[in-house]
């Protein structure tokens, strides 16, 4: 009974719901697949790294929404989200400054000694750069908002 009294004071962010859990269980794999498709096929169809990365990030948000934010936070661990977002920025910058090192301008894909360098460069920036940054930051912002300022948790 003391739990119920404590809950009444605390604003609750998670209430277990069979409907939401079942829906997310069915929908999440499709959203993940669609997100990966939009990311990897973004050069030839609508979408790209931003939309695809956001969709992949949303899958994690859906899981947190359905199964509780704290269990999802523990499942993710404290490192992976930061690593994903930072890795995206590093990949993007590396591709950009790589062409400078090869004697061209920033992101001048044609400098790379590859077959179809521009197409491959665009794909690399979209998938390895933008998608990772957006997915990481969206997941990060969600869990940060849920956690609130430090010293505020109960």
């Amino acid at each position, binding site marked *: 009974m003391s739990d119920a009294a404590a809950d009444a004071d605390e*604003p*609750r*962010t998670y209430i277990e719901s069979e409907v939401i859990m079942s829906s997310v269980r069915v929908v999440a794999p499709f959203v993940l697949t669609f997100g990966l498709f*939009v990311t990897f096929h*973004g*050069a*030839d*169809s*609508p*979408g*790209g*790294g*931003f*939309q695809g990365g*956001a*969709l992949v*990030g*949303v899958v994690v*948000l859906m899981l947190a*929404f359905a199964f509780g934010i704290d269990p999802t*936070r523990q499942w*993710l*661990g*404290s490192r*992976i*989200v*930061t690593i994903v*977002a*930072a890795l*995206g*920025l590093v990949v*993007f910058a590396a591709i*950009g400054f790589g062409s400078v090192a090869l004697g061209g301008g*920033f*992101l001048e894909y044609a400098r790379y000694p590859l077959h*179809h360098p*521009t*197409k491959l*460069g*665009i*794909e690399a*920036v*979209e998938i390895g*750069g*933008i998608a990772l*940054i957006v997915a*990481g*930051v969206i*997941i*990060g912002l*969600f*869990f*940060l*908002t*849920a*956690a*609130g*300022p*430090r*010293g505020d948790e109960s």
Partner: protein
Amino acid sequence: MEYVAYALALFVIVTAVATALLRDILAAIVVFGAYSLGMALLYTLLLAPDVGLTEAVIGAGVTTLLLLLTIAKTVRPSDDRNIERIDPRALFACGALAAVFGLTLPGLPAVGDPDAPIISYDAVTGYYLTQSYSETGVENTVTAVLAAYRGFDTFGEATVVFAAGVAALVVLRREVFT
């Protein structure tokens, strides 16, 4: 098709007004999500599926979730003050940023200028539509513009997204996202 667009535009206007007028914040957030969904469909109907996809995911999905989380996490302020205290440093930073952006205004073409490069078809739009495939090898012109022709801008945007995450960490005085 036209009637669908008109119906969607009406839906968007009604949901936008409802978002502004509803007193219950939870209801306003739900209606705002519906507004974003209407906008996403409208963008898709106006042949901008890339923007529509973004609006659907970010506007209808992520924003709604973040707003729901926010009302679950916030309470009414306990004291009687009606107006927030103003931090002079924050005011200075915001003013300086606005001034810097304002400096770029004279460089923009006048509103509705028919000779603006973005409107005169052949200078920009037509060039991308006819040349992007042969120059970049990707079929989605939007992706070609985003990652090749305007790659430096996109690098800046990606950095801004990352910086937004870092800024949230700083504001909430935390060291890791999760």
